[in-house]
């Protein structure tokens, strides 16, 4: 099936070449970091995780969100998602690969990374996170490729895939739960040590991931003949409902956090929130981000609750708002504010460097390249069958 990715229009190839150029720039930046060390990033003794781990955390959510299509379609026989589900699975594949790459560019000794397998530590959440991520990648690849392959031949998917599909449902929940446990189990990091972390992660994932997916469906509709939500089906509007409730739950969970911190009046609990929303000890670099996220979150919810959700122009705006609200919350603020204040009650700020940002953009470009290729294959198979 892969050969379908090797034929395409001029625009397709221009896009691929553009991505390759971005990847090359990112790769050069990574080589610099590889030779010099992580000192080329903005990370420090006090803020020892930065953009890389934050992107990883956010993208695990995007990967997990495929389950919001898989569960209704395969478990509840909800036919509306029939054409969209493959796009969700392929989005998950590309997101997991980006997750793995973000971990890889974040470690100080990448050549030793297999030590995690060579000396597995059953008490480390990191070990389980690696297992579930790799497992999820394999599951989605097997399921996506087999079902699409069967579709190409016009035969039903083989029977053995179904148990794997069912397995992918709890597995999707597990990847984001385990990722939340990375943070929620650390003593002394008040911002992270909260029982609601995994629930918050899942809620934000099920809002941001499907938002991105609908946006992708709209793009695919524009650039190809394939429409994952043909007129009369209403798959997008069904997914919008899921996004709406997930986002409301996410904001609700966040408000629970803020209430607990401020009503209890425990200084360590309040400090990171203060840092994110109003600044702490004169340091306020996250404040504009956090307020942007807050406004976008409420704007997104409003647009998705009101009839505006059916408007062709306003729907993408609503989805973009939800997506970026979550991206700022999880892909920037959550990790950085977790380190503020540090173990000594001092504030150290973190500003990513250009080299670091180039690497982040490069990894995203790899993910988008993989996504483009997978979508090209899926779309080619579908349009070929339609004719």
């Amino acid at each position, binding site marked *: 099936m892969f050969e379908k990715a090797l034929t395409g229009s001029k625009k397709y190839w221009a896009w691929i070449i553009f991505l390759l150029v971005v990847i090359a720039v990112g790769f050069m930046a990574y080589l610099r970091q590889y030779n*010099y*060390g*992580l*000192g080329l990033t903005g*990370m*420090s*003794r*006090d803020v*020892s*995780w930065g953009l890389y781990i934050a992107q990883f955390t956010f993208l695990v959510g995007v990967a997990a969100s495929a389950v919001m299509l898989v569960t209704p379609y395969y478990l509840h026989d909800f036919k509306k998602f029939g054409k969209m589900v493959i796009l969700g699975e392929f989005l998950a594949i590309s997101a997991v690969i980006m997750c793995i790459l973000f*971990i890889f560019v*974040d*470690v*100080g*000794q*990448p050549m*030793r*990374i297999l*030590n*995690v397998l*060579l*000396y597995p*530590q059953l*008490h*480390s*959440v*990191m*070990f389980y996170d*690696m297992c579930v991520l790799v497992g999820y990648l394999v599951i989605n690849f097997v399921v996506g490729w087999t079902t699409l392959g069967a579709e190409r031949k016009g035969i039903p998917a083989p029977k053995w895939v179904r148990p794997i599909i069912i397995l992918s449902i709890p597995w999707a929940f597990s990847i984001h739960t385990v990722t939340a446990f*990375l*943070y929620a189990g*650390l*003593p*002394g*990091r008040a911002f992270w040590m909260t029982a609601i972390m995994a629930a918050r992660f899942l809620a934000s994932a099920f809002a941001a991931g499907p938002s991105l997916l609908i946006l992708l469906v709209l793009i695919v509709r524009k650039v190809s003949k394939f429409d994952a939500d043909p007129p009369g089906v209403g798959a997008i509007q069904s997914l919008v409902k899921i996004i709406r409730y997930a986002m409301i739950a996410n904001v609700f969970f966040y408000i629970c956090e803020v209430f607990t911190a401020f009503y209890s009046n425990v*200084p*360590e609990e309040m400090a990171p929130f203060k840092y994110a929303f109003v600044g702490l000890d004169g340091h306020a670099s996250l404040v504009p981000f956090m307020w942007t996220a807050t406004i976008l979150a409420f704007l997104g919810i409003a647009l998705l609750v009101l009839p505006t959700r059916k408007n062709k122009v306003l729907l993408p705006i609503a989805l973009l708002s939800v997506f970026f609200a979550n991206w700022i919350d999880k892909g920037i603020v959550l990790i950085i504010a*977790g*380190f503020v*204040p*540090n*173990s*000594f*009650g*001092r504030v*150290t700020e973190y500003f990513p460097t250009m080299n670091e940002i180039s690497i982040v953009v490069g990894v995203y470009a790899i993910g988008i390249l993989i996504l483009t290729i997978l979508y090209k294959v899926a779309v080619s198979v579908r349009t070929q069958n339609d004719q």
Partner: protein
Amino acid sequence: MSINRRQFLRRAGMVTALGLGGSFVITGFRGKKVEAASEYETSKQGLKAKHWTMVVDMSKFKTEEDFKRVTESCVSIHNIPDFGNPKDEVKWIWKDDYEHTFSGGENEYLTEEFKKLPFTIMCNHCEHPPCVKACPTGATFKREDGIVAMDFHRCIGCRFCMGACPFGARSFNYRDPRPFIKKIDPDFPTRTPGVVEKCVFCVERLADGLMPACVEASNGGLIFGDLDDPNSEVRKIISTKYTIRRKVELGTQPSVYYLIGGGEHV
């Protein structure tokens, strides 16, 4: 000369399997892994304990010189670099003021003098170390004598331990430390960029029968011994005098105690 794709793949697979198998057979013949009849032992002069513990007698740390002597003794034998900036900073033992060392219990009426009272800080060698739990490779681990040690060979530099440590005791080598070490001591390794490091209670000196370098340099300000031994000095101080530890509420059970009031030892 007409084989179809399936046959071709099958034959190619068989040839590959044969080749790989053959190479194993050949290396199997060549590799002579004779075990030498040897043993590994602990050193005879080595100091042993069940729970190494440090008591910091703050009354013995009066001048800037007292702190400097202790820190310097560690820096010189452990090849600790000085980058001159807090971002890349590596430190094993250092000082900070009361207000920040014991952050959380703010008492706004304390005099400035009290708030700024300096304390010696190092890894707490917790009984339940969160860093060890976090480490995905076992590069940081707890020894039987209670010391939380580092295996620099194994560290992949994921910095999970730095997030897990509630005491800010861990440093990461953000860049090559060698050019920033004043004078390299050949008896202790420098570190490679990309690994985490911290105080290890001088395990290498304990094995040679020596007390940790900071203890030797402290003129009695640092008392080191076995908390499990009822007759040890640390045990006597901790059981009869007023000592405090950092962030006990987290339940990690630090093994570094700060003796307040000081005076004569037991």
